[in-house]
């Protein structure tokens, strides 16, 4: 059986083609939002940011919140996907961190050039954010952060995201490890296998 394209390679491709750009370091209004997440290490039982700076985290948080928004069902922010991304880029995807950081900087500078303003993406009005993501949603950086967002939504909570299994709540997966039939709607009334004429199934 053929295997799907290696996921890690896809990630490398997704983050590997960006030109470098300078990071616009300003005190963004949305930092407070990311900082709130980033300070969960002080007693709430959550990890703190280890790889992303608070300004970087604010931008990543804003992007992932548009990829899987909140609402009636949990979104990326509810599942604390930011911590997964931070943890991944600081550990098992650490080799991709330089490219990711460059990609984020490129994303920022391009957004600033587009708006003609120093206001960071995370502080921009949502309509402007959405418009900009439509502009860049085929770029390797966006594909990488999208990929990380989905991974962080569904991977086990021990990796930082899928907080309280909210990602599994979203996709309808129950947190159990054994089951009995029926499993779904269509096998509830399955009458059993009916042999074909001319065949003679035999059992032990």
């Amino acid at each position: 059986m053929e295997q799907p394209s290696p996921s890690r390679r896809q990630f490398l491709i997704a983050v590997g083609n960006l030109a470098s750009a300078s990071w616009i370091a300003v005190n963004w209004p949305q930092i407070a939002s990311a900082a709130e997440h980033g300070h969960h290490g002080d007693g709430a039982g959550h990890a703190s940011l280890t790889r992303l700076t608070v300004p970087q985290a604010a931008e990543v948080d804003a992007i992932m919140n548009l990829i899987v928004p909140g609402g009636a069902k949990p979104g990326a922010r509810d599942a604390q996907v930011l911590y997964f991304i931070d943890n991944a880029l600081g550990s098992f995807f650490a080799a991709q961190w330089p490219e990711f950081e460059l990609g984020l900087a490129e994303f920022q500078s391009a957004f600033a050039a587009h708006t003609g303003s120093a206001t960071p993406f995370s502080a921009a009005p949502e309509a402007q954010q959405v418009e900009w993501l439509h502009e860049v949603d085929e770029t390797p950086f966006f594909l990488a952060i999208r990929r990380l967002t989905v991974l962080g939504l569904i991977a086990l909570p021990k990796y930082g995201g899928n907080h309280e299994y909210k990602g599994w709540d979203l996709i309808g997966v129950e947190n159990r490890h054994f089951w009995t039939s029926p499993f779904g709607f269509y096998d509830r009334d399955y009458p059993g296998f009916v042999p074909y004429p001319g065949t003679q199934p035999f059992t032990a």
Partner: protein
Amino acid sequence: MERKTFPTSETVDFIVVGSGSAGGIVARELALAGHSVVIMEQGPRLDAWEFEHDELKYRHLSGITNNPATNPQTFRRDESEVAVRRNSMTYARVVGGSSSHFNANFWRLHEIDFIERSVLGPIEGADLVDWPITYAELEPYYCKVEWEVGVSGLAGASPFASFHSRPYPMPHLPIKSSGVLFERGARALGLHPFPSPMAINSTVYRGRPACVQCGLCGGFACEVKAKNSSVWTVIPEAEESGNCEVRSNSYVFQIGMNDAGRATGVHYFDGDRVEQFQHARAVVVCANGSETPKLLLNSATNAQPTGLANSSDMVGRNLMLNKGGGAQARFEEPLNEYKGANVTMMLHDFYNSDPARGFYGGGGFTARSGGPLTWGQNVPEGTPTWGPEFKDYLESYTHWMNCAGHGTSLAQPTNRIDIDPDLKDDWGVSAMRVTYKDHPDDMKHAQFMVDRAVEIMDAAGAVQIVPSEVGPANGGVHLLGTCRMGDDPTTSVIDKYHRTHDVTNLFLCDGSSLPTSTRGQPTHTIEALAFRAAEHINRFAAANEI
């Protein structure tokens, strides 16, 4: 039980390189016959409780598979290209080998598989050959696998199956929603779906429990020992004989040879990466279809400068991967495919290659599930990749299933494993270079399978169908054909008893032994070959013919 160990200075009767589907069986059979055996395994030995329901770890981070960071490979489409660093061959690196993480979908081959060249004639651009054995010769060993390792299923249910002399020892697993829908669609088209044989216990069997239907088979090792991996089945029985040691974290990189042209043992790195040598009277390599040729080619000597047992120049050639194609389908109500064994229903109506189609190829279809983490990465064309509609798509996860086609790949001598001239792994061992390009018939057959899968899912009442894209192979997990068996030493590497034509006391048995690609599910056949090979090796040993 105290496990037997052998000092490296002791000359054991047999070293078995690899602890997977074939290695475990060969070791058990040799040990039960009274021979001293050391199984060398690259990876660690893990107990059931050490495996996790962790899709990220096992399917995305090389949790128990060869790690591209430490075991790199290179890849190219043909010899005109410069190979680039990329791991295309995937296999488990743990005691139990790839039998630890397989889906456990266990098909027997059909009689036609062994005689296709005679029936179909030559195929341009390919090296299609008959096997040196027949289905009838292998049939008793299929039974042995089914009863001694454990397979659940319903023998005789498929009108297309070749004869079974015994039933399966366990009834088939419960049919899940994907199986019911697959059966509904296929029967509506006049096809003949049947409950899938699986190397998973449906009842308590040989002291191991029945499946708990956790849903995580492919890519995962079984945490309750219901999936019949060698680490839970034959390896403990080999150890209980008192004649077998499993030496984990032991990476064999070269076969030792003497001036008489006989194997003397194996060079390996132990868990501390210290080089060791284990002496043996004979060596059986069961390392998989990529590592076995790599080991032979890395074991070249002055007398055999192009690689061990390679006088035919066939070591590493004819790599086959099992080309396939299928469709993903969404249904109105939830299926909950994350529950239950990955495959419960299949069909073999398109098994045989039909010249009327205009190309070579055949295979089977299964109703198949996969983990949500992997599913969530792929978005159907036309569905937004982010935003509220993407979220809606994620919410539909429990409504999807796969109709998967598993098919043939033609043997081509240009598709091969050889040694990269520059790249080395973390141990300093020369890495494998993979050259692979699909035969045109493989591409046509893959599209044929996609089209049939779409028809089956449409007939089943799917509300959305996403055909898979047919593209060039990027790699595989079924690694076949690279040391093919045959009667002619000028065109094959091993004889029909798995002895290399060139080295009397060197045997090979794994996916590399297969002359053809087995239509998608090779493990049952590899295990049957292992029982057969071991029987003959024991016979040779008893006759002092090794």
